[in-house]
């Protein structure tokens, strides 16, 4: 009996010594990478890989600061905005809350990466998911920075700015109402729904830093995944796709919608890319601008990571179809047909 008691801590200690934790794995990965640096650089000396690597780093460098902005806002909401304030501000009915949330998107001047952690935190603070998802889709597309960029890219075509605003707002609100009607909470992973306990006054900064840190680590990995996919497709998608769109509007609309998804451009830059495609008619350009901020591969990865896979595989395709439909409808009305 005495021997048994003595042995137990000894075994425990040995087990702890042998256990490999992630910090050791990280050290080994870094060490191996540093030792193999020369070979690594040779490996990337193939032109296509080099181009892909540059695009990958570019997407990361470009998007990470906006993700940081998003997690800071998310942390601030968690720490400084009590759930009951949000409940008081937003209308009780989900349908009305969707409208408020769509217009609230005007206030977050960032790209799509920033809005994912914010939307998730809103759900965590008890905002109706329909409203939070509307905000998620509206914020990157209807904020003033993006609208000004669009106006600069299409000078003399103010109807393009209006059409983009209306198309994106319609997309986000329709998605909100669809969610309010058919959405199931069980699709969203439990982790995203977890409600933080009310913060005590002395703990605010701690909660702020900790929430931002956790959100950043979680979403950051998926942003990197999205950047990898986007860089790969950027190199692989044949440039000819852009050339054949001149006079087939239907094909043009579909191809531009698909391109918006696979290229995963920042919503502040996509207007310039669309404007540079002079051969493409206005309607497919508008579709490109409305679909891109609503759903692309980078966003899909972020959504899957934040809200769970079973949410993303349902939400993303529906968003694509709704955005396509809204853009086509608004474009036909506001741009006067498919010119």
């Amino acid at each position, binding site marked *: 009996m005495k021997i048994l008691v003595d042995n137990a801590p000894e075994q425990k200690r040995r087990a702890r010594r042998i256990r490999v934790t992630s910090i050791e794995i990280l050290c080994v990965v870094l060490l191996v990478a540093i030792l193999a640096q020369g070979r690594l650089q040779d490996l990337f000396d193939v032109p296509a890989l*080099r181009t892909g*690597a540059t695009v990958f780093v570019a997407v990361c460098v470009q998007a*990470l600061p906006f993700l940081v902005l998003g997690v800071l806002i998310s942390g601030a909401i968690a720490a400084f905005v009590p759930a009951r304030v949000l409940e008081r501000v937003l209308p009780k009915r989900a349908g009305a809350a969707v409208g408020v949330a769509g217009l609230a998107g005007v206030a977050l001047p960032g790209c799509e990466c920033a809005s994912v952690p914010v939307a998730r935190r809103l759900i965590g603070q008890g905002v109706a998911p329909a409203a939070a998802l509307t905000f998620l889709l509206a914020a990157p597309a209807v904020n003033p920075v993006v609208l000004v960029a669009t106006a600069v890219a299409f000078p003399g075509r103010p109807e393009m700015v209006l059409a983009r605003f209306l198309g994106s707002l319609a997309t986000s609100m329709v998605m909100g109402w669809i969610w309010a009607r058919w959405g199931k909470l069980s699709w969203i992973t439990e982790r995203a729904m977890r409600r933080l306990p009310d913060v005590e006054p002395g703990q605010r900064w701690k909660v702020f830093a900790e929430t*931002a840190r956790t959100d950043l*680590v979680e979403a950051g990995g998926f942003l990197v995944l999205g950047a990898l996919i986007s860089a790969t497709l950027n190199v692989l998608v044949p440039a000819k796709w852009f050339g054949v769109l001149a006079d087939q509007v239907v094909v043009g609309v579909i191809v531009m919608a698909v391109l918006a998804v696979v290229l995963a451009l920042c919503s502040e830059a996509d207007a310039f890319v669309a404007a*540079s495609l002079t051969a493409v008619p206005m309607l497919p350009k508008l579709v490109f601008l409305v679909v891109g901020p609503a759903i692309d591969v980078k966003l899909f990865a972020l959504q899957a990571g934040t809200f769970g896979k079973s949410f993303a595989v349902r939400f993303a395709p529906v968003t694509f179809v709704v955005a396509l439909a809204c853009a086509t409808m608004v474009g036909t009305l506001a741009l006067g047909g498919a010119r």
Partner: protein
Amino acid sequence: MKRETQNVLLILLGGALVKIVVNGDYLRYVKPAQQPWIIAGGVVMLVLGAVAILRDLVAARAAAKAAALESEAVGPEARESHEGHDHVDDGHGHAHPACSAWLLVVPVLAVFLVAPPALGADSVTRTTARVPQSAATTSAAAFPPLPAGKVVELAMNEVVTRAGWDSNGTMNGRTIGMSGFVVHEGSTTLLARLVISCCAADAAPVTVHLKGGAADRFPSDTWLRVTGQVVAGTADENNGYTPDFAPATVERIAAPKDPYEY
């Protein structure tokens, strides 16, 4: 993934962002206007990681001290309550294994070890020359006359735009100076420059066709400064608005720090 590892990764990634701004490499990836954003993003990551590590250390020390004090008095019960406290401390978010966080290693390695170069000839041949950005808007607009002087320094975007859309012929008879990199496409030698509006993912090339063979001997991606004249009426839709350029001088230069036009 352990909390400590996450914090180390955050610090590495934040450090990578700050590094590329400090040594100027960020211009290979994004436009200059992004600089404050990248700095701020990197610094916030560093701070979030550092604060978490510091707080963990302080908490661990306090917990160890408390445990040492209490274990004398109460024994196993104290240890249990200490564990409970620990759980509350790192309570939200990472009860699940955050495997995705491992992907943060990829950009860290890419920035510190590979440091991908700016886009070059491969990107130009991959993306058929799109129309210069300003072009859609300036069609038939009056271009202001070029400034006086023997050689007029112009951005390549400007040269190609004027060659394609300037019906007043402001470049006719003028000697233009510009710089770009060599691209060999089939038997033709192009001088190219990539135009970005946000980051390298949206880069679109502008190109001129270098006539006369003076530049043929340079391999692709060599940076050149050329002076010469644009052959009027050679840029149209069929050649992707690539005007012919007759260079008078061709001079090899070092790759510039900011390789893109904006």
